[in-house]
């Protein structure tokens, strides 16, 4: 049977991917962030998940307003590296897991999450930045990826609670997957930042730390927040935090923190997090 080994939170800013590609990870202003990835890489090397379920958003790269799904799940056997206008990043194509993805599709739709199914979803920085920072891909990707895309760009967005519940449904689906398979869930994006309007450059470290506290111990209180509250405290693009809430929903009510780091760069508050279930209770997890 499949198991969930834990959940991770990572920023997904394209600048982080560019820093990797340009060999800047030890540059003074980047080092605090990349040092924060080391315990996460080590945890992944120890837990060796077969699959990462990536909760991310596309940035009008592979998806556009002509047909923008609220939730989309990739069943692709392999994912191309998207060209975001400067040529694709020098990463190998990312293997998917069609069998698990179809299981998730069936289970989630049965659980009333009517998501779009994608057979060809080139991945942009929303997924590739955390993936390329967390996994050593130089000799090929060490595992498979199931991307789940959430619309955080065009309102109406799914509510924070809806994302949290999607995470809970992902948990039920993974734990019912009758294949030996270790899965980790990755929430991506944020934390506080704003890219449009007069409040461009808004960062709120106090909120970011509070968000990380509450995500760990009282995620229900975050699920109750409106989009306006998220935007007021974390900036318009800080709304990406609802994707971390999806990751948190896929973990047990009580979790153990393995790692947490926070750093804010020029434009964005960066949170890094590894959580594990406090107690593994599959019977309880399978109930609604």
């Amino acid at each position, binding site marked *: 049977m499949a198991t969930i080994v834990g959940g991770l939170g990572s920023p997904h800013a394209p600048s982080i991917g560019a820093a990797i590609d340009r060999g800047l990870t030890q540059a003074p202003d980047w080092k605090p962030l990349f040092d924060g990835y080391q315990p996460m890489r080590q945890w992944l090397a120890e837990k060796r998940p077969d699959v990462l379920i990536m909760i991310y958003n596309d940035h009008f790269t592979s998806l556009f307003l002509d047909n923008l799904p609220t939730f989309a799940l990739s069943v692709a056997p392999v994912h191309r590296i998207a060209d975001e206008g400067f040529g694709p990043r020098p990463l190998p194509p990312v293997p998917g897991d069609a069998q698990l993805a179809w299981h998730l599709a069936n289970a989630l739709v049965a659980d009333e999450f009517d998501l779009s199914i994608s057979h060809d979803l080139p991945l942009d920085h929303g997924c590739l930045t955390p993936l390329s920072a967390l996994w050593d891909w130089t000799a090929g990707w060490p595992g498979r990826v199931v991307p789940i895309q959430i619309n955080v760009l065009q309102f109406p967005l799914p509510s924070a609670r809806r994302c949290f519940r999607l995470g809970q449904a992902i948990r039920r689906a993974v734990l019912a997957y009758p294949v030996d398979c270790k899965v980790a869930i990755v929430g991506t994006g944020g934390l506080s930042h*704003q890219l449009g309007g007069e409040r461009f450059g808004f960062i709120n470290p106090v909120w970011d730390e509070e968000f990380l506290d509450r995500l760990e111990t009282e995620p229900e209180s975050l699920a109750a927040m409106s989009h306006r509250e998220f935007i007021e405290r974390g900036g318009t693009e800080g709304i990406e935090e609802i994707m971390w809430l999806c990751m948190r929903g896929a973990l047990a009510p009580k979790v153990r923190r393995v790692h947490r780091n926070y750093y804010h*760069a020029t434009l964005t508050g960066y949170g890094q997090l590894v959580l594990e279930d406090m107690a593994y209770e599959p019977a309880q997890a399978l109930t609604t």
Partner: protein
Amino acid sequence: MIPQAGKPINSDPLPAGCYRLGGSAASIAYGMNRFCHALLVAANRDAFKADPAAAMQAAGLSPAETAMVNARDWLGLVRHGVSPFLLFRLSGALGMGLAATGAQMRGQTLEEFMQTRKITGAR
């Protein structure tokens, strides 16, 4: 708290200086957003840079949209309903980086904006 049935959970007014893409403004700005989206492709960027007026006319931009692009009125475009992620494709094609584009929306030069930052070597 579960939102009441039919109550739009996304309609609360936002704080000053914040904008969201959606609603009828998104319908009005769809052509403008689609124009910016197309700049992902190098050939479209080249055509735009070679003859901005022709490219904008071919895309069916309104006179007001064309005027905002010509004036590099980034804030006006965001207020009009352009997504920041698509705006940066436009300003980038015109040679303006993300931070400079954002600084202008704040009413600052890039230098003034960077002086407000503690970390400047890592975006």
